[in-house]
C-alpha cells in the first residue's frame, strides 16, 4: 500500500533541483528568442482540465514581468520560489493545483511581451516552461508594463474546469514593479493574441472581464528604492483594491501566492479533505 505523498514530492524535488544555485542567469535562461510554443499568437485557448489523477483542479495563472528592469527577479524566482509553488499549494491543502506561467513585458518596446506556458500540475513541468522563457534585455523607460496582456489572455483564451464545472474561480496573479498601461490597443490585441478582430479595451474593462472567472491579484515587488515609490505603484490600488499586494520581500512570492489561494478558494462541500496520494495499495517493487 502506500502512495507516500511526501516521498513522491521529495523525489520530484530531487529530480528538478538542477543545481540552479551554481548557475548564472544566462545558463538558466538559454532562450535567445521567443519559443514558438509559447507564442500567444498561435494559442487559441489553453485548457485546465480535471482528470482521474487530478479530479478537482484549481487553475492558477502566474504572470511574471520578465523585462530588463526585473531580469534578476525571474532568475531568483525560478531558482528559489516557483519550483516550490506547487508543493506549497499542496501543503496548504490545495490538492490539485494547475499552474500556467506567463512571461510579461512591455508591448511598446519588447519583442515578446506575452509568452505563455501550459497549465501544469507538477513542479517539474512548470519549471520546464519557466526556463524556456526568453528574457528581454531591454524594456522601456516608460514606467508602464503590459501586465494587462495577462488579463486579456486569461479572460479570452483560457478554458478552466474549476469555473466551468464547479463555479470555483481560478486565480490570476501578475507580478511586477511598475504601473500597467491604461489600455490595450486593438493593434496590440491582434498582434499578440490569436484574435483576428479586436477593439481597443481599457485596463479596467479587461480586468473586469477576467474577474468573471478568476480572482485577480497584482503583486508589486519592492526590490529597490524606486520600486517602493508611489509613482511606481501606479493606480493598481484603485483597480484591484485589497487584491493589490505589496511584497517587501520578493523571495516570499510563492508562499504568498499559496496563502492567497487558500484564503480565497471556496472548496466544494464535503470533499477532498485528505492528502493526494494517501492511497494504500500493494507495493510489489
Amino acid at each position: 500500500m502506500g502512495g507516500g505523498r511526501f516521498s513522491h514530492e521529495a523525489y520530484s524535488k530531487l529530480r528538478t533541483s538542477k543545481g540552479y544555485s551554481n548557475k548564472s542567469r544566462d545558463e538558466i535562461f538559454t532562450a535567445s528568442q521567443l519559443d514558438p510554443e509559447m507564442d500567444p499568437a498561435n494559442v487559441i485557448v489553453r485548457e485546465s482540465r480535471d482528470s482521474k489523477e487530478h479530479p478537482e483542479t484549481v487553475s492558477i495563472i502566474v504572470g511574471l514581468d520578465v523585462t530588463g528592469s526585473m531580469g534578476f527577479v525571474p532568475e531568483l524566482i525560478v531558482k528559489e520560489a516557483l519550483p516550490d509553488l506547487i508543493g506549497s499549494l499542496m501543503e496548504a491543502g490545495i490538492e490539485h493545483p494547475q499552474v500556467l506561467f506567463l512571461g510579461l513585458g512591455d508591448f511598446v518596446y519588447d519583442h515578446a511581451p506575452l509568452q505563455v506556458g501550459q497549465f501544469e500540475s507538477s513542479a517539474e513541468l512548470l519549471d520546464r516552461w519557466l526556463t524556456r522563457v526568453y528574457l528581454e534585455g531591454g524594456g522601456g523607460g516608460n514606467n508602464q508594463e503590459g501586465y494587462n496582456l495577462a488579463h486579456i489572455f486569461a479572460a479570452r483564451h483560457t478554458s478552466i474546469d474549476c469555473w466551468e464545472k464547479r463555479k470555483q474561480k481560478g486565480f490570476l496573479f501578475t507580478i511586477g514593479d511598475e504601473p500597467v498601461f491604461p489600455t490595450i490597443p486593438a493593434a496590440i490585441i491582434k498582434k499578440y493574441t490569436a484574435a483576428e478582430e479586436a477593439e481597443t479595451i481599457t485596463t479596467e474593462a479587461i480586468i473586469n472581464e477576467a474577474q468573471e472567472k478568476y480572482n485577480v491579484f497584482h503583486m508589486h515587488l519592492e526590490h529597490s528604492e524606486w520600486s517602493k515609490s508611489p509613482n511606481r505603484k501606479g493606480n493598481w490600488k484603485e483597480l484591484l483594491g485589497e487584491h493589490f499586494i505589496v511584497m517587501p520581500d520578493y523571495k516570499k512570492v510563492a508562499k504568498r501566492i499559496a496563502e492567497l489561494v487558500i484564503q480565497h478558494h471556496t472548496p466544494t462541500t464535503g470533499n477532498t479533505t485528505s492528502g493526494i496520494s494517501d492511497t494504500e495499495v500493494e507495493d510489489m517493487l
Partner: protein
Amino acid sequence: MQQCSIVIDLGFGDAGKGLTTDFLASQQPEQSIVVRFSGGHQIGHTVTTDALTHTFSNFGSGTLVGVPTFYTEHTTVFPPAILQEGNFLKKYKPQLYVHPLAMITTMYDIAYNRALEKQQNHGSCGLGFGTTIARNKEEVYFFANDLQFNWVAKQRLKSIRTYYETKLLHQPKSVQEYYFNELSTYDEDYFLETCSAIEPFYQLVRLPEIAAHFEHFIFEGSQGILLDTQHGFHPHTTWSYTTSKNAIQLIKDHLGPTATVRIFYVTRCYQTRHGNGPMSETQSVTLKNNDNEANETNEFQGEFRTKGLDPELLNYALQCDAIHHQDLLIEKNLMITCLDQLPSFSPADLIENLAPNFSSVHGSYGPMRKFIKQLPV
C-alpha cells in the same frame, strides 16, 4: 509493566491502521512510542484530527499526539522525504529513532523501480521500496548509520550507481532509457545535503537503548496480511512481512518475557483493494458517508475497489498471523472501521463467524479517533 500493541491489517491494506495507531497513541502519549517494523517510506496512513488530515509516510501515525517513532532494521527510509514531511509537520515536533541498519533508499533505487515498473505495470508505488530491499538482499548496502559521514555516503551512492548500471546491461533498451532519463536532471549533491539536513529529526539507536523510556510500544504494521510476501497471492504481494512476525521477534529479543502483548486486527466492514489483484467473491456494497475516502484511483496504483466482507478470508488472515506468534500469550482484539459507511453491516454476525475469541472489539464511525466505540463482544 511494559505493554505492546501490534496493529495489523487483515486485508489488502487500507483498513485504518493510521486511525488505530493514533487511537492507541492518544491513550498515554507521554509513555508511548510507535514502532515501524515493516514497509518503509512508501506507506500512506491517514490520521484525521479537528485541525488536520494528514497521510503519514515517513513518520508514525502517533506523531500528531506527540508520540515518537522508531524505525527498525526491517524498514527503509528516504532522507529527502523525511526532510519534506518533517518540515511540514514541524509544529508537532516529529521525532524519529532509527536503527543504524535501517535501509536507505536512493535515487538510483527509485529510478530502477520506475524503469522496470513502466514495463511490468504491477502497480508499484514507484518509490523504490522493493528495489531497496532487493539490493540489500544482494548485499549492496547503504544504512542509516552511514548518513552522518559525507564521504561514506558518497561512496555508498557510487557503489549503488555501479550496481544498477551493471544490472541494466541485462535489461532491454527501453528500461535503460527510462532509467537514465529519470536520472538526467538528478543532483546528487542535493541528495547528500538532505542526508545531513534531516539531522534534527532523527537519532540513531537500537530498541534496547530506548526501551526503558517507554511503557507502551505500538507496533504500526504496514499494508495487509493478504499482501504478505508469504501469505498473499503472487504476483500481487509486497516485499515485506505484513503479519506480526517481525514485531513478535523484536518483542522477544528486546522487550523481554514480561511484556504483555495484544494485537489489534484491523478491517473495514467491507473489502477494499487497489489495482488488478484478486478479491473474494462477495456481494457488492453501496457505501454512504464516504466522501472523505482517502483512496482514489491514480496512475501508479490502479483503481480502488470495494466489495462485501468475507469472514472466511479474515479467518485465513488470522490463522496466517497466528503461525508467527511463537509461544507468547497474546491477547487478540478486533477493530472494525468505516461502520458509518455501511449501516446494514452487523458486527455481531461477523464476530460469530470469526474463529478467535477477541478480548475486545472496537468499531469506528468516522475518520477521527473520537468516532471509535467499544462494541459488545
